[in-house]
């Protein structure tokens, strides 16, 4: 039996009962489109999360003071216990660790800020000039903090756009105006470009001042709350992280790494944690879609079994005039596969539309990947074969005499 004959027979058989074929196809359409839409939403969410983590900066390693308590009789110094990182630590990392692009030392704390009758409470972060490079901060107006201003502990500040809006009103020019942090007057030299929130904090509600100013006027000591290190390439990050740990353990005279008074966080770790969460989410969504695909497949099997019963006499006749088992099997299998392939194509289109519609809502930037389309199509074809095989086999095994006698 030639391919063109099989397609002709399939078309005739499926169009003989259009409503039933249509409903069966609908089952597959829903299954395939939900797989595509769900996976695209999952991938989109995953991309959104990764990109917002990457917006923190690239190849970033953050060192923060640990909550490590003193062992034995040493008095727990509470918050003071976290004061373990110094300017010298940052200096040493910059000088002694290989493959380090830039190092930024930070002191961060929250203060009440006042300016001309308005006030707000926000995070004040002491940074070096490297901060803008390491954390991808761009300045919209004015300039960022320079090394000179840092070394001379100038009382200058760069505002995040949200803070600027809170203090001076939206869109106003704040450059050159003054704010008071902890009672001390700082002059505004720049406003950063909006970056958007990263979930837990708003990166735009912040004030940057030189780190030495923060240490001298605000915290009053030589300790840092964060050292941010940028590695030269993503490949060396693990090595740089290990080198930093060794260097700091050595500098802090700690022999057991488990007792370290600091912790080193690799951006890749955060990324991989986040992506493992989102990929689990994607699997979950795909599984929900997969279940509807399974239900659609059972619908096909149901229809094909009904068809085989209805057309028993026809099968008997075909066998009597010389159709081989394989001819009958091919014919019924072709019908099942045709149902799923039509359903698959329509389902892919519908899934794409759903994903596009979700995109328009602006909640998640969805992306339909070629692989998910190919996967869905492959699955639909396999569904057709798997769920069509049993009915087709049943048709092929019919005894021609019994089949002809069937009423």
């Amino acid at each position: 039996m030639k391919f063109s004959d099989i397609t002709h027979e399939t078309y005739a058989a499926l169009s003989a009962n259009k409503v039933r074929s249509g409903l069966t196809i609908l089952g597959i359409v829903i299954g395939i489109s939900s797989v595509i839409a769900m996976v695209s939403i999952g991938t989109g969410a995953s991309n959104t999360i990764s990109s917002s983590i990457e917006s923190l900066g690239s190849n970033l390693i953050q060192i923060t003071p640990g909550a490590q308590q003193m062992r034995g009789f040493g008095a727990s110094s509470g918050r003071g216990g976290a004061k373990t990182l110094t300017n010298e630590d940052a200096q040493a990392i910059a000088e002694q660790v290989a493959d380090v692009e830039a190092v930024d030392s930070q002191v961060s704390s929250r203060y009440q800020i006042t300016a001309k009758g308005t006030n707000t409470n926000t995070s004040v972060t002491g940074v070096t000039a490297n901060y803008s490079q390491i954390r991808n901060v761009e300045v919209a107006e004015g300039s960022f903090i320079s090394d000179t201003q840092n070394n001379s502990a100038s009382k200058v500040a760069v505002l995040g756009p949200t803070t600027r809006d809170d203090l001076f009103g939206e869109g106003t020019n704040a450059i050159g105006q003054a704010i008071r942090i902890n009672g001390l007057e700082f002059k505004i030299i720049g406003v950063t470009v909006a970056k958007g929130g990263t979930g837990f904090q708003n990166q735009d509600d912040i004030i940057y001042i030189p780190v030495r100013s923060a240490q001298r006027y605000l915290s009053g000591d030589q300790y840092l709350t964060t050292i941010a290190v940028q590695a030269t390439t993503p490949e060396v990050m693990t090595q740089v992280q290990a080198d930093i740990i060794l260097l700091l353990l050595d500098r802090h005279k700690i022999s057991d790494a488990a007792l370290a008074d600091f912790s080193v966080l690799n951006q890749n770790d955060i990324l991989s944690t986040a992506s493992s969460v989102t990929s689990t989410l994607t699997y979950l969504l795909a599984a929900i879609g997969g279940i509807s695909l399974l239900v659609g497949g059972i619908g096909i099997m149901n229809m094909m079994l009904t068809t085989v019963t209805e057309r028993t006499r026809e099968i008997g006749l075909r066998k009597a005039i010389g159709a081989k088992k394989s001819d009958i099997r091919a014919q019924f299998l072709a019908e099942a596969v045709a149902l799923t392939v039509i359903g698959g194509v329509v389902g892919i289109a519908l899934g794409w539309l759903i994903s596009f519609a979700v995109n328009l809502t602006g909640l998640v930037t969805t992306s339909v990947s070629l692989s998910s389309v190919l996967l869905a199509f492959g699955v639909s074809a396999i569904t057709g074969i798997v769920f069509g095989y049993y009915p087709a086999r049943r048709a092929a095994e019919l005894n021609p005499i019994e089949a002809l006698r069937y009423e």
Partner: protein
Amino acid sequence: MIEIKDITKTYGSGDTAFQALKGISFTIKDGEFIAIMGPSGSGKSTLMHILGCLDTLTTGTYFLDGKDVSTLTDEELAEIRRLHVGFVFQSFNLLPRTTVMRNVMLPLIYAGVSDEERDERSRKVLSAAGMTESHFSHLSNQLSGGQIQRVAIARALVNDPSHFVKPFIFDNVNNSTAKFLRGDLALNRPSRILVILCQSIIPARCRCNRF
């Protein structure tokens, strides 16, 4: 040439076993026109199924053109049916919602004949069976009873390579069809074997060689 020797057919097994054929032997020579007669339940249909290679026999031997058919597998029987046997069924069994042409072509489709040849042979045999050209594209459920018979006969004849013996097996042929067989079809190919089944003597009038 059909030779059957001592064939029996038993349906079921054990207590419910029913022996439909009890040791039948005969030979049909090429070109003969045979009528098998007998009352209902006498095993005519069973014999026809076996002659047409639709069913296998329980014991005995069946030689078709000198080839032992009783030992063939299902697939090989399908091959024989496709090449050597034409059936016209009691209820004709045309495919519903399918055109006359397509119905007649069906055996050729399974034989893997090319589209052009299929078309040509179907037209020829339909004309020979007395169908007018304008009816070729009608659906099978739009035909009259007589037309259905003609189409069914055309379908049985379409797959007819000249150098093969054809046992045509007709099931319960009525009088008018019997005349039609005599007039138009029976003598087209002298080597062809025709077997018809009937309960009365009427169709036997139509020049059957034996009955």
